[in-house]
Protein backbone atom coordinates (compact mmCIF):
# COMPACT_ATOMS: atom_id res chain seq x y z
CA UNK A 1 0.00 0.00 0.00
CA UNK A 2 1.16 3.53 -0.72
CA UNK A 3 0.43 6.47 1.52
CA UNK A 4 0.71 10.15 0.85
CA UNK A 5 -0.56 13.11 2.79
CA UNK A 6 -1.83 16.44 1.49
CA UNK A 7 -3.70 19.37 2.97
CA UNK A 8 -7.33 20.26 2.51
CA UNK A 9 -7.79 22.83 -0.25
CA UNK A 10 -10.64 24.49 1.60
CA UNK A 11 -8.97 24.18 4.99
CA UNK A 12 -5.21 23.68 5.22
CA UNK A 13 -5.44 22.54 8.83
CA UNK A 14 -7.09 19.31 7.69
CA UNK A 15 -4.66 16.54 6.73
CA UNK A 16 -5.77 14.28 3.90
CA UNK A 17 -4.23 10.82 3.89
CA UNK A 18 -4.51 9.10 0.52
CA UNK A 19 -4.37 5.31 0.58
CA UNK A 20 -3.53 3.44 -2.59
CA UNK A 21 -3.76 -0.33 -2.68
CA UNK A 22 -4.89 -2.85 -0.07
CA UNK A 23 -5.24 -2.04 3.62
CA UNK A 24 -4.56 -5.34 5.41
CA UNK A 25 -2.26 -6.50 8.20
CA UNK A 26 0.66 -5.82 5.85
CA UNK A 27 0.02 -2.07 5.88
CA UNK A 28 -1.96 -1.30 9.03
CA UNK A 29 1.04 -0.60 11.26
CA UNK A 30 2.15 2.07 8.81
CA UNK A 31 -1.28 3.71 8.75
CA UNK A 32 -1.49 3.75 12.54
CA UNK A 33 1.97 5.35 12.75
CA UNK A 34 1.08 7.89 10.08
CA UNK A 35 -2.04 9.00 11.92
CA UNK A 36 -0.15 9.19 15.21
CA UNK A 37 2.58 11.29 13.58
CA UNK A 38 0.06 13.57 11.87
CA UNK A 39 -1.75 14.20 15.13
CA UNK A 40 1.60 14.64 16.87
CA UNK A 41 2.41 17.39 14.35
CA UNK A 42 -0.64 19.24 15.62
CA UNK A 43 -3.01 18.19 12.83
CA UNK A 44 -5.84 16.42 14.59
CA UNK A 45 -8.45 16.72 11.84
CA UNK A 46 -7.86 13.99 9.31
CA UNK A 47 -9.65 12.83 6.19
CA UNK A 48 -8.73 9.42 4.79
CA UNK A 49 -9.22 9.34 1.02
CA UNK A 50 -10.19 5.78 0.04
CA UNK A 51 -10.80 6.40 -3.67
CA UNK A 52 -7.77 4.25 -4.58
CA UNK A 53 -8.19 1.67 -1.83
CA UNK A 54 -8.86 -1.60 -3.61
CA UNK A 55 -9.45 -3.67 -0.53
CA UNK A 56 -9.89 -3.40 3.24
CA UNK A 57 -10.27 -6.28 5.66
CA UNK A 58 -11.04 -6.32 9.38
CA UNK A 59 -7.41 -5.42 10.24
CA UNK A 60 -7.72 -2.38 8.01
CA UNK A 61 -10.95 -1.38 9.73
CA UNK A 62 -9.21 -1.78 13.07
CA UNK A 63 -6.49 0.63 11.95
CA UNK A 64 -9.06 3.21 10.81
CA UNK A 65 -10.84 2.93 14.16
CA UNK A 66 -7.53 3.30 15.98
CA UNK A 67 -6.87 6.42 13.93
CA UNK A 68 -10.31 7.77 14.80
CA UNK A 69 -9.63 7.27 18.50
CA UNK A 70 -6.19 8.90 18.23
CA UNK A 71 -7.64 11.94 16.48
CA UNK A 72 -10.53 12.29 18.93
CA UNK A 73 -8.28 11.91 21.96
CA UNK A 74 -6.38 14.92 20.61
CA UNK A 75 -9.59 16.93 20.29
CA UNK A 76 -10.02 16.31 16.57
CA UNK A 77 -11.69 13.74 14.33
CA UNK A 78 -11.06 11.36 11.46
CA UNK A 79 -13.42 10.94 8.54
CA UNK A 80 -13.29 8.68 5.52
CA UNK A 81 -14.13 9.73 1.98
CA UNK A 82 -14.79 8.16 -1.43
CA UNK A 83 -15.19 4.55 -0.34
CA UNK A 84 -14.86 2.05 -3.16
CA UNK A 85 -17.50 -0.63 -3.60
CA UNK A 86 -15.52 -3.13 -1.54
CA UNK A 87 -15.07 -0.64 1.29
CA UNK A 88 -18.77 0.16 1.29
CA UNK A 89 -19.55 -3.54 1.49
CA UNK A 90 -17.37 -4.18 4.52
CA UNK A 91 -18.55 -1.02 6.31
CA UNK A 92 -22.15 -2.11 5.91
CA UNK A 93 -21.45 -5.71 7.00
CA UNK A 94 -19.82 -4.50 10.21
CA UNK A 95 -22.24 -1.61 10.87
CA UNK A 96 -19.18 0.63 10.90
CA UNK A 97 -20.79 2.94 8.36
CA UNK A 98 -22.38 4.55 11.42
CA UNK A 99 -19.06 4.99 13.23
CA UNK A 100 -16.81 5.91 10.32
CA UNK A 101 -19.55 7.66 8.30
CA UNK A 102 -18.13 7.81 4.77
CA UNK A 103 -18.37 11.00 2.72
CA UNK A 104 -18.85 10.89 -1.04
CA UNK A 105 -16.10 13.43 -1.67
CA UNK A 106 -12.91 14.53 0.00
CA UNK A 107 -14.16 18.14 -0.11
CA UNK A 108 -17.32 17.15 1.73
CA UNK A 109 -15.31 15.38 4.41
CA UNK A 110 -12.91 18.33 4.76
CA UNK A 111 -15.79 20.74 5.09
CA UNK A 112 -17.29 18.72 7.91
CA UNK A 113 -14.00 18.03 9.69
Amino acid at each position, binding site marked *: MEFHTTEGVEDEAVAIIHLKGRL*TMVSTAELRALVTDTVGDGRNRIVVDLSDTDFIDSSGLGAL*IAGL*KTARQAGGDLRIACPTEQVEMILKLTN*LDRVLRPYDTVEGAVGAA
Partner: protein
Amino acid sequence: MRPEPLRLALDAPARPEVLDALHDLLGRAWAQCPAVTGTDRMSVELAVAEIAANIVEHTAGTDEQIDMTAGVAVHSDRVEVDLSDSGDPVSVDFAAASLPDDELAESGRGLALARAVVDEVSYARDGELNRWRIMRRLVP
Protein backbone atom coordinates in the same frame (compact mmCIF):
# COMPACT_ATOMS: atom_id res chain seq x y z
CA MET B 1 -21.23 -32.59 -19.84
CA ARG B 2 -20.10 -30.51 -16.88
CA PRO B 3 -17.08 -28.36 -17.65
CA GLU B 4 -14.00 -28.92 -15.52
CA PRO B 5 -13.52 -26.38 -12.72
CA LEU B 6 -10.65 -23.95 -12.97
CA ARG B 7 -8.06 -24.88 -10.37
CA LEU B 8 -5.18 -22.77 -9.09
CA ALA B 9 -2.90 -23.36 -6.14
CA LEU B 10 -0.23 -21.70 -4.09
CA ASP B 11 2.28 -22.64 -1.41
CA ALA B 12 3.88 -20.04 0.81
CA PRO B 13 5.14 -19.35 4.32
CA ALA B 14 2.38 -18.18 6.68
CA ARG B 15 3.59 -14.58 6.88
CA PRO B 16 1.66 -11.36 6.19
CA GLU B 17 2.95 -11.25 2.61
CA VAL B 18 0.86 -14.32 1.82
CA LEU B 19 -2.22 -12.10 1.86
CA ASP B 20 -1.03 -10.31 -1.27
CA ALA B 21 -0.16 -13.62 -2.90
CA LEU B 22 -3.68 -14.89 -2.22
CA HIS B 23 -5.24 -11.75 -3.69
CA ASP B 24 -3.11 -12.17 -6.79
CA LEU B 25 -4.07 -15.86 -7.03
CA LEU B 26 -7.77 -15.00 -6.88
CA GLY B 27 -7.22 -12.21 -9.39
CA ARG B 28 -5.80 -14.78 -11.82
CA ALA B 29 -8.82 -16.99 -11.23
CA TRP B 30 -11.26 -14.14 -11.93
CA ALA B 31 -9.39 -13.20 -15.10
CA GLN B 32 -10.07 -16.68 -16.42
CA CYS B 33 -13.66 -16.77 -15.15
CA PRO B 34 -15.26 -13.50 -16.20
CA ALA B 35 -18.75 -14.78 -15.37
CA VAL B 36 -18.02 -14.54 -11.63
CA THR B 37 -19.75 -11.33 -10.52
CA GLY B 38 -18.14 -8.47 -8.63
CA THR B 39 -20.08 -9.29 -5.47
CA ASP B 40 -19.02 -12.93 -5.60
CA ARG B 41 -15.39 -11.91 -6.14
CA MET B 42 -15.37 -9.40 -3.28
CA SER B 43 -17.06 -11.88 -0.96
CA VAL B 44 -14.62 -14.70 -1.65
CA GLU B 45 -11.64 -12.34 -1.41
CA LEU B 46 -12.80 -11.04 1.94
CA ALA B 47 -13.42 -14.48 3.44
CA VAL B 48 -10.07 -15.78 2.21
CA ALA B 49 -8.28 -12.69 3.53
CA GLU B 50 -9.86 -13.03 6.96
CA ILE B 51 -9.08 -16.75 7.30
CA ALA B 52 -5.54 -16.27 6.01
CA ALA B 53 -4.94 -13.36 8.39
CA ASN B 54 -6.22 -15.58 11.20
CA ILE B 55 -3.71 -18.26 10.20
CA VAL B 56 -0.84 -15.77 10.07
CA GLU B 57 -1.73 -14.34 13.47
CA HIS B 58 -2.08 -17.71 15.15
CA THR B 59 1.16 -19.04 13.76
CA ALA B 60 3.23 -15.95 14.51
CA GLY B 61 5.63 -16.16 17.42
CA THR B 62 6.69 -19.73 16.82
CA ASP B 63 10.29 -20.43 15.96
CA GLU B 64 9.56 -22.92 13.23
CA GLN B 65 8.36 -21.76 9.86
CA ILE B 66 4.73 -22.51 9.27
CA ASP B 67 3.66 -23.11 5.69
CA MET B 68 0.33 -22.50 4.05
CA THR B 69 -1.22 -23.93 0.95
CA ALA B 70 -4.21 -22.60 -0.92
CA GLY B 71 -6.31 -24.32 -3.55
CA VAL B 72 -8.92 -22.40 -5.52
CA ALA B 73 -11.60 -24.18 -7.56
CA VAL B 74 -14.04 -22.15 -9.63
CA HIS B 75 -17.00 -24.33 -10.61
CA SER B 76 -19.94 -23.23 -12.71
CA ASP B 77 -22.10 -22.83 -9.62
CA ARG B 78 -19.66 -22.16 -6.76
CA VAL B 79 -16.18 -21.14 -5.73
CA GLU B 80 -14.24 -23.23 -3.25
CA VAL B 81 -11.05 -22.18 -1.53
CA ASP B 82 -9.20 -24.65 0.65
CA LEU B 83 -6.46 -23.33 2.89
CA SER B 84 -4.22 -25.45 5.04
CA ASP B 85 -1.44 -24.62 7.48
CA SER B 86 1.10 -26.67 9.37
CA GLY B 87 0.61 -24.87 12.68
CA ASP B 88 -0.63 -26.19 15.99
CA PRO B 89 -4.30 -27.14 16.31
CA VAL B 90 -6.57 -24.17 16.91
CA SER B 91 -9.84 -23.82 18.67
CA VAL B 92 -12.33 -21.99 16.51
CA ASP B 93 -16.10 -21.85 16.64
CA PHE B 94 -17.50 -20.22 13.54
CA ALA B 95 -21.07 -20.67 14.72
CA ALA B 96 -20.35 -18.54 17.76
CA ALA B 97 -18.41 -15.86 15.88
CA SER B 98 -20.11 -12.49 16.07
CA LEU B 99 -19.25 -8.82 15.82
CA PRO B 100 -17.87 -7.27 19.01
CA ASP B 101 -20.30 -5.33 21.22
CA ASP B 102 -17.93 -2.38 21.35
CA GLU B 103 -18.34 -0.42 18.12
CA LEU B 104 -14.86 1.01 18.53
CA ALA B 105 -13.19 -2.38 19.01
CA GLU B 106 -10.06 -2.59 16.89
CA SER B 107 -10.21 -6.35 16.38
CA GLY B 108 -12.43 -9.40 16.67
CA ARG B 109 -14.51 -9.04 13.51
CA GLY B 110 -12.65 -11.36 11.16
CA LEU B 111 -14.41 -14.68 11.65
CA ALA B 112 -17.87 -13.12 11.80
CA LEU B 113 -17.14 -11.30 8.55
CA ALA B 114 -15.93 -14.46 6.83
CA ARG B 115 -19.09 -16.26 7.88
CA ALA B 116 -21.29 -13.41 6.68
CA VAL B 117 -20.02 -13.26 3.10
CA VAL B 118 -19.79 -16.91 2.05
CA ASP B 119 -22.06 -19.93 2.33
CA GLU B 120 -19.63 -22.21 4.09
CA VAL B 121 -16.57 -21.62 6.20
CA SER B 122 -15.23 -24.47 8.30
CA TYR B 123 -12.17 -25.73 10.12
CA ALA B 124 -10.93 -29.26 10.70
CA ARG B 125 -7.76 -30.77 12.03
CA ASP B 126 -6.31 -33.36 9.66
CA GLY B 127 -3.23 -35.14 10.96
CA GLU B 128 -0.52 -32.50 11.21
CA LEU B 129 -2.49 -29.87 9.32
CA ASN B 130 -5.21 -27.35 9.96
CA ARG B 131 -7.67 -27.28 7.08
CA TRP B 132 -9.97 -24.38 6.31
CA ARG B 133 -12.67 -24.53 3.68
CA ILE B 134 -14.49 -21.58 2.17
CA MET B 135 -17.35 -22.03 -0.28
CA ARG B 136 -19.61 -19.49 -1.91
CA ARG B 137 -22.40 -20.37 -4.28
CA LEU B 138 -22.35 -18.21 -7.35
CA VAL B 139 -25.27 -16.00 -8.24
CA PRO B 140 -26.57 -17.43 -11.51
